[in-house]
């Protein structure tokens, strides 16, 4: 097992390096970072633009720029200067990541619990009313534009606030701005939770919709298998067969799918964050893309690619642990 993990980690390194090359090309193709200077009225003198290009290494060839960037990152842990902002790129990514992680972890936990519950129920009672209802709900959420739903939900939250005269639902940002005056732990915690509810519902439903369908399908397959029939005919109770025999097996593929989806959510959640104006990874990327802040984009893409690769590895390892048939020799 350990050998397998180490080998996979070693294989990941060239993949990650190749990924940096790919992201570098994409970022370079996405536009001219100094366009904002060139479009400014009155236009700054050419010498100033040239000097900016020089300090950002934009006047060198792509391979030189790439080497400059990757060697700085690997040898000094330096992400390069931001084009327009003043903050350090590394610390910006770290703080944005913390915000997104909070959103993603809470949504994933809630969505997973609900998805497994409803998935199992609708598999056990296939073609029942419960099954049809949850399946239909799942399909509707799979077919809904996330931001459309999010905007409606936000509107509902605002309506609730104005009806009750409270600020129960935070609809803008991950915390109140300006910060609430009460600095006690309870009040601060409440503030964070109030801002968390609506985005978690949005992001959770996206995960829930696909995971509950997945659970249902994988549960159905297991329930039809011979060993479950055997367990029942041996005289084990329905409940015991369901929980100990069927569910355990059915959840194995779900772990893989979830691990992969979580990675995508961590990098993404772009839409949800945009609607609720959270200062997370999604917003960071969109702002950087709008202004072609290439060092932020590069850093962002590398961080998300690393997360995806790591979660791929986690998925493989989990699979090996849960399914005794798979041996990583």
């Amino acid at each position: 097992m350990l050998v397998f993990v180490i080998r996979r980690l070693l294989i990941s390194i060239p993949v990650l390096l190749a990924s940096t090359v790919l992201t570098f090309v994409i970022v370079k193709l996405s536009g001219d970072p100094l366009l904002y200077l060139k479009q400014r009225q009155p236009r700054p003198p050419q010498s100033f633009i040239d000097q900016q290009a020089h300090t950002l290494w934009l006047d060198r060839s792509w391979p030189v720029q790439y080497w400059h960037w990757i060697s700085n990152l690997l040898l000094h842990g330096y992400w390069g200067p931001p084009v327009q902002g003043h903050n350090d790129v590394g610390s910006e990514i770290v703080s944005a990541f913390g915000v997104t992680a909070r959103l993603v972890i809470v949504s994933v936990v809630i969505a997973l619990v609900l998805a497994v519950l409803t998935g199992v129920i609708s598999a056990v009672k296939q073609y029942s009313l419960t099954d049809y209802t949850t399946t239909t709900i799942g399909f509707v959420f799979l077919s809904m534009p996330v931001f459309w739903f999010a905007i409606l939900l936000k509107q509902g939250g605002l309506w609730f606030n104005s009806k009750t005269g409270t600020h129960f639902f935070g609809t803008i940002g991950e915390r109140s701005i300006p910060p609430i005056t009460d600095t006690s732990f309870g009040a601060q915690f409440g503030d964070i939770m109030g801002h968390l509810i609506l985005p978690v519902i949005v992001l959770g439903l996206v995960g829930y919709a696909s995971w509950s369908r997945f659970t249902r399908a994988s549960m159905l397959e297991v329930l039809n298998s011979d060993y479950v029939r055997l367990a029942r005919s041996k005289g084990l109770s329905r409940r015991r067969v369901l929980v100990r025999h069927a569910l355990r097996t059915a959840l194995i593929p779900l772990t893989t799918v979830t691990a992969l989806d979580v990675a995508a959510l961590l990098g993404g959640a772009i839409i949800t964050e945009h609607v609720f104006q959270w200062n997370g990874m999604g917003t960071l990327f969109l702002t950087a893309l709008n202004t072609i802040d290439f060092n932020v984009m590069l850093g962002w893409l590398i961080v998300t690619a690393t997360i995806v690769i790591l979660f791929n590895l986690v998925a493989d390892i989990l699979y090996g642990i849960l399914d005794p048939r798979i041996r990583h020799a």
Partner: protein
Amino acid sequence: MLEINEKSDVEAPSAPSKTEREFTVKERSQWRMALRRFLRHRVATASVFVFLLLILFAFVGPLVWKYDYINYTNDISQPPTLKHPFGTDSTGFDQFAVVMRGTAQSLKVAFIIGIVGTLAGALWGVVAGYIGTWVDSGLMRVADLILTIPALALAAALARSGGGTLVLIGLVLAAVSAPYVARVVRGVVLSLREREFIEASRALGASHWRIMLRHLLPNTVPVLLVNATLLIAQGILAETALSYVGFGIQPPDTSLGVLITTAQGALDSRPWLFYFPGIFIILIALSVNFIGDGLRDALDPRQTRERR
């Protein structure tokens, strides 16, 4: 089709003699069986009709409807009425016509994604799976690489560099989704290429391209069909998401995503501008998803509980 259904379904008590049956009961090909299974999935069958209606609405509707999306009327900011079923916006454009146009454009994007993405992914997967060796590992590593980048971020970055025309957005989203298809198709091809019929055609002297295109590709069609519906549904949603974050189709060209994005500012005063395009996106994606579900049941019978 229905005729055949009846004949084969009914185990008639006064069954004709054995020899007679042999000649009257038509042979059921694989595709006929699949069609039968598909028609049993009532929601999927209904979805085909809904989807056809949507296509009619989008492409034939503008020829029939009294207003068009270019000319504004004198009715400004009107809620839905009989005259303007979907209301009008602040310039006086009839929203029924505008939504027709948006649906048509969104469907075009979705079809580009579905067709180009599926074909590119299929070719990618067939070549990788059949040739194997370094070609396989090379092609698949490229797919892995693309999949390490969140699809929406990748599409946004690519779309930004090319400017937001309809065809470009469609092609970008197709490029982003092709690796998924390639992975699935490769898996299928890996198991197919060891089968006797491939060996036989190789023994008969068929070229590699002939084997790939004439023997392997047709056998992946069931998988491709299911995947194409997935791509279309996800493509429609991805297009709206791109529009929302500002990197999708650029006005004056339009799509359902563009319509919602522009309408969100007027959600308080003219909510109908926001509701109707959203409902049409859901209708398209939902019917396509259901069709995909029906196709999966029909073409991959292992998934369903009862043997049919």
